[in-house]
């Protein structure tokens, strides 16, 4: 594989039951392309957490996944409320999710920490009132 392959998705912000469809599609595509299994698993988990966050917190957003010869690059962009304190948001167990989200099995304050944990490189930029952009990279073996 010599050229980068790009997959793009729009995540709806009003249908939590559909959250995860993009991540599942990315996983399926990467597996079909014969990408290293462990890298696919790490990328899929990180992306799934991000997709859930887009649906829960941001009113939806855009996902762009680029597969290069040596890396899976995942970009998540939203125009949601932004994160006032990123270091606080990155700490395990801290969450602003409402009870209804917790009743669905999320909002335990593990989303961003899990995304960082499963990425080889993780970067988050956020401006209150403007939105949040997260870039995650997973290296291929």
């Amino acid at each position, binding site marked *: 594989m010599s050229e980068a392959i790009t997959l793009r998705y729009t995540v709806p912000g009003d249908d939590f039951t559909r*959250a995860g469809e993009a991540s599942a599609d990315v996983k399926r595509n990467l597996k079909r392309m014969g990408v290293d299994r462990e890298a696919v698993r790490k990328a899929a988990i990180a992306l799934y957490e991000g997709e859930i966050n887009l649906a829960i917190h941001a009113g939806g957003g855009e996902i762009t996944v680029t597969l290069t010869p040596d890396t899976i690059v995942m970009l998540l962009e939203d125009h949601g409320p932004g994160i006032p304190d990123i270091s606080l948001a990155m700490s395990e167990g801290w969450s602003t999710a409402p009870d209804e989200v*917790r009743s669905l099995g999320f909002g335990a304050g593990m989303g961003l920490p899990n995304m960082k944990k499963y990425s080889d490189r993780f970067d988050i930029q956020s401006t209150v009132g403007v939105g949040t952009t997260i870039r995650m990279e997973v290296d291929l073996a």
Partner: protein
Amino acid sequence: MKIREILDALGARLLTPDADLEVDVHAACGSDMMSDVLAYVKDQGVLLTGLNNPQVVRTADMMDMVCIVFVRGKVPGEGILELAAARDIAVLTTEKTMFSACGLLYEKGLRGGTSHV
């Protein structure tokens, strides 16, 4: 431990009739919080949960899990079962509580996984 043994140990009912019950399960995780499940890593695991929504299947799929056990007699809807069947994930339901179900599987030798990536 094979899925068939989990079925027997929990007195469970299989909800995905075409599932392969001879698949080996190497570890288990019991939780209603899917983010906690996603923080846990192990191939070919079984997820025990009382949560009943499509994200349970999506989470199991992301974690390459092969079996979901719904505790406390919960029975997921057809849409959830179809989602699981399409991913070759066996779905069981047991009347046992989470604590009892986890204890029974632990007694049979199944263990939790690692939190390392």
